[in-house]
């Protein structure tokens, strides 16, 4: 994506200078997310859906639920799958084709936050052990890229799952039969991802595209309702100090609470 070295270098120098005095180009505080807007039920044909705007980054997540065969090593647990496509309409740099390395990392990091927080109780999605379980697919369409896909996608997935419903199944003679009754997906937790970028020696929250173009390192820390860390991922081609990691953890716990409240509000 990096096209013009000269422009980039100038832009980065300017950004570092501003950050040294605690300023961001869009006037946010270092620990401040952009405006977060969450709409749910945007795709009525899906079992659950949400559109999230994080500044100009826009993501739509849709949940589809079906029965499936459990994995051999977890015969009594449902299946959860998170996929992401960075649509070619989202950015001049996105291209059609099989998922890029970036899209795979994005989907797996978001998946990890959901899975490790035990947001969805997969044990409750078992129907006939070893034979039939409920499979929950969450697909994410990245609609517009303006930085921090990790948080925007994570919020969209969490909001879509929190509002998703599915057919109630009954088991007869070891066969799962769908009823007409709709029940909510068994959601237990609300994991919240917070992503940081280090630019020079300053760390900022929720980087936009301009900041990502200048960032040296990216780190995502996801916390669950109890304020515990449930997932993290460092990215990009530079390093971070141990002290910066621990500070990011503290910030993520603090901001996580606020964002969790917003998500809960938008999905009740």
């Amino acid at each position, binding site marked *: 994506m990096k096209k013009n070295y000269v422009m980039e270098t100038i832009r980065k120098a300017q950004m570092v200078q501003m950050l040294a005095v605690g300023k961001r180009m869009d006037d946010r505080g270092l620990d401040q997310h952009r405006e977060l807007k969450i709409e749910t039920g*945007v*795709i*009525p*044909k*899906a079992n659950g*859906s949400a559109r999230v705007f994080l500044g*100009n980054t*826009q993501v*739509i997540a*849709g*949940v*589809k639920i*079906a029965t499936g065969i459990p994995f051999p090593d977890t015969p009594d647990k449902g299946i959860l799958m998170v*996929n992401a*496509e960075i*649509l*070619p*309409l*989202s*950015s*001049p740099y996105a291209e*059609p084709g*099989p*998922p890029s390395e970036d899209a795979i990392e994005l989907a797996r990091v978001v998946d990890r936050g959901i899975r490790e927080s035990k947001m969805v109780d997969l044990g409750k999605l078992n129907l006939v052990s070893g034979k039939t379980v409920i499979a929950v*697919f969450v*697909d994410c*369409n990245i*609609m*517009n*890229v*303006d930085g921090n896909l990790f948080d925007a996608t994570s919020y969209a997935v969490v909001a879509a799952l929190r509002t998703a419903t599915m057919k109630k199944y009954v088991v007869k003679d070891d066969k799962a039969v769908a009823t007409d009754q709709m029940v909510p997906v068994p959601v237990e937790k609300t994991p919240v991802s917070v992503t940081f970028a280090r630019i020079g020696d300053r760390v900022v929250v929720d980087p936009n595209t301009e900041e990502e173009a200048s960032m040296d390192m990216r780190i995502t820390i996801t916390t669950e309702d109890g304020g515990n860390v449930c997932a993290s991922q460092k990215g990009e081609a530079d390093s971070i100090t141990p002290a910066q990691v621990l500070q990011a953890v503290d910030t993520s716990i603090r901001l996580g609470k606020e964002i969790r409240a917003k998500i809960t509000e938008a999905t009740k």
Partner: protein
Amino acid sequence: MGEGKTKLIDEAGRRRDGRKWDELRPISIQVGLMKNADGSAYIEWGKNKIMAAVYGPKEVHPKHQVLADRALLRCRYHMAPFSVDERKNPAPSRREIEISKVIREALQPAVIVEDYPRTAIEVWVEVLQSDGGSRVAGITAASLALADAGINMRDLVVGCSCGIVNDQVVADLDDTEDKEGSGDMPVAIMPTLGKVTLLQVDGIYTREQFQKAFELAIEKGKQVNAMQRAALNSRFFGGEATTSEVEEAAE
């Protein structure tokens, strides 16, 4: 197409959703919502929810695809995995590959590709939720996205699908009518120039039914074109499109 045996029109001539035989589903169009794209349009048409966006004119990669005398028009019609009843595999199906091709060929007559030699113009059509007539809805949005991107055009392109339900010609089939009915005919036109840029036919039509459905599709396309123009107007000159403009355009 289905067997055509399911009863989809009642004694009073009303369709399952209460429409008359020649009535369109509700349509709403917004132009220019996407931030990164050079042009964009979003259409809701029945239960269809479709975003179209345009990038270009831009450099051609790979180089060997460059056309010396005109722009290379690229198009992808893609369905989100959650857009249909059963989750769709995100990899492009043969159906999506064919529709991408016919959409490109439906748009190209309107794009003055000769004005942009050695460049690429990319049209991305993403079906967020699918209903009957998604390709004509996609074309309708895509031509607005091209206009929004400031690409030189001879005309807009607009589509409507008509067909046969219970042996009767009807306008603008929804998903059930498409699957249970006995004929579907998506048509796209350049409404001012009066030319057809897309025609696909499924199902059995007598010579008379063919003509009636085809001419109805053109007429309804002109009606949708009025909404296109209103949406463009509201994008560039603000405010709501006036009814008179819509009526004038629909003539």
